[in-house]
């Protein structure tokens, strides 16, 4: 196992990690502040990818595609909040799960209706194709740009939440929403804002993944499972928790897929290692979550309750 390979896999892990962060930042806030379970978050990601791919196909401009994905994601999330989520804040979690699961089916069907069942696509913008030298390792420029975009998004979230007035309200809301509304803050508006912010970030994730993935109905669901794991590990409602947990999950998942079959081969015979490797690798993140839940049920970086 060479250092180069190790570094490349580390970068791959980081790249998956920042993508997971973009998806979990908004969701964890919605979870934490409104105690609302939103399974349809993956659909915003999917729609963001579709918006980006469509805009790029028409304009050939990555910036326009980015704008379409983020604004589209935000508007759609706002709409979901107004039409569906708002009515369900007071209901129990099962109702919320049922309603948002229904949204998944609706969004997937809408996507299929508009764009067809076959995978849709978006090319890598020419400026970002090829490879770049990073610490002496040749790595895909586009994947590196995903890492950069993810880190910028994380920085943006940090500034917004720690340095601005809205961020202060968000932080207060995640600790004690009742008290915040009692103090005369329009918590409904705040909720809608957080929902839209989450939608914009999901759209950004959709934009960044559409050149490397096939854009198709149902693409949001597999990644949603990882996002849920990230939220639980990071601590519900905690954005900085989501950031660190996302990076951890990204690296663990990638390292598991890359190295576990090789490591297993040292202990058991080749064919069993080939069979067991991917099975165990896919469980690794869940095992990690279970361990966190057992030792620190509030998550690794919980919101501090005053």
């Amino acid at each position, binding site marked *: 196992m*060479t250092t180069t*390979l190790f570094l*490349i*896999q580390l970068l*791959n*892990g980081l*790249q*998956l990690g920042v993508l997971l962060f973009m998806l979990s930042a908004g969701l964890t806030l919605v979870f934490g502040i409104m105690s609302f379970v939103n399974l349809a978050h993956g659909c915003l990601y999917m729609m963001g990818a579709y918006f980006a791919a469509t805009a790029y196909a028409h304009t050939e401009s990555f910036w326009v595609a980015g704008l379409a994905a983020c604004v589209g994601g935000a508007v759609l999330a706002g709409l979901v909040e107004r039409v569906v989520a708002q009515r369900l804040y007071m209901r129990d979690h099962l109702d919320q799960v049922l309603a948002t699961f229904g949204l998944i089916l609706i969004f997937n069907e809408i996507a*299929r*209706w508009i764009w*067809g*069942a*076959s*995978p*849709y*696509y978006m*090319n*890598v913008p020419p400026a970002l*194709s*090829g*490879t770049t030298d990073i610490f002496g390792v040749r790595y*895909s420029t*586009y*994947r590196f740009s995903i890492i950069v975009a993810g880190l910028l998004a994380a920085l943006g979230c940090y500034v917004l939440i720690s340095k601005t007035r809205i961020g202060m309200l968000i932080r207060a809301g995640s600790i004690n929403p009742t008290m915040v509304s009692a103090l005369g803050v329009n918590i409904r508006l705040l909720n809608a804002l957080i929902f839209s912010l989450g939608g914009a970030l999901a759209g950004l994730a959709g934009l960044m*993944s559409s*050149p*490397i*993935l*096939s854009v*198709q*109905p*149902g*693409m949001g669901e*597999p*990644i949603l499972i990882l996002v849920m794991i990230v939220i639980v590990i990071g601590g519900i409602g905690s954005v900085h928790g989501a950031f660190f947990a996302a990076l951890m999950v990204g690296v663990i998942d*990638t*390292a598991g*897929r*890359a190295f576990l*079959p*090789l490591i297993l081969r040292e202990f058991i015979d080749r064919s069993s290692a*080939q*069979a067991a*490797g*991917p*099975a165990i690798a*896919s469980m690794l993140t869940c095992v990690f979550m279970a361990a966190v839940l057992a030792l620190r049920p509030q998550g690794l970086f919980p919101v501090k309750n005053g």
Partner: protein
Amino acid sequence: MMKFQVKSFSIACAMALASMGSHAQQPLKIGFLGTMSGPAGALGQDQYDAFMLGIEHLGGKLGNNAVQVLKEDDQLKPDLGVELAKKLIEKEKVSIITGVTFSNVMMAVHKPITDSGVFLIGTNAGPTPITGKGCSPMYFSTSWNNDSLHESMGAYAREQGYKRVYLMAPNYQAGKDAIAGFKTQYKGAALDEVYTQINQPDYSAEIAQMQAANPDAVYVFYPGGMGVNFVKQYQQAGLLGKLPLLSAATVDGTTLPALKDIALGVITGSPYSPDLDNPQNKKFVDDFRKKFNRVPSLYAAQSYDAAMLLNSALLKTQGKIERDAFRAALKQANFKSVAGPFKFNNNQFPIRNYYRVDVAKDSSGQAALVYKSVVLKDHADPHASQCAMN
């Protein structure tokens, strides 16, 4: 939007056919069962469109009989497939059912259909159990046993003299069958066999490991959206064109539109290529493109062949569908397949050629599937010997 138009157009065609039938004497009812919705819906749609195009080419008739095709969508659910097959047989009284896109549905509907004395003409799925021991006199396939695509690429790797091949497939039965099928023909070293999670979107980790292993060639089986993802990422890693990528069912007529130039250089094993040089294929491809504005896939070709096969048999029996006579007529396979030489083996699966088909630029500069060479000539699947019929 285009999709929508095509769909409503084919519905209109079906309705037109149905109304035409009612004027003549009782039309011959044929059931079409396929996966028309969901992510894999494009496959069933191709099968249906091509079957209807075949009937249209024959003047709306099969063997001088007016026909009525009843379309059913199994949604890739085996239990629903069985329900729909029963409905077609008991309520609609069809005597022939064609289509069937996926193996799991095929395994479920095969027995209910053939046991009730209805002819089943499979035009895609060919799972091994019903190719070998479980073969049935009422079941014909115009496609292939599931292993054959992989056998053809294994044979190609052997011919090319690749010493070290890296194998990848999703971690489920068809993925394992793919790699086993490849290895029946390929005798060199399998450098590694990597099974990834089904529907895994990102292969960056696996591709980095593959690069580090430094193989002579790579063989993958990634149907549907997985194939789009894999090929895209393989190309983005700068490997396509440098490290030969052999594949089966990964880049096909349904996924190429999403990949286009990205897939240039992918080598596939296939029983069909849209540019095969024979008059019946030329007519089929030209009219299919004109009518549906897309290039027909192998699923379409197999289904078109089924219409031609049924026509030839019905001509022979003068429109009668009596068990033994009709079966004998079908077995003769007295039609010209768009895919080249075609005859039936004792298990009623085709003995046919398998080709190397590359993704390359066609004469108009578009990325297309382009025929390169015959890899396996008159290939019969090895399971036929286990079939007790003759």
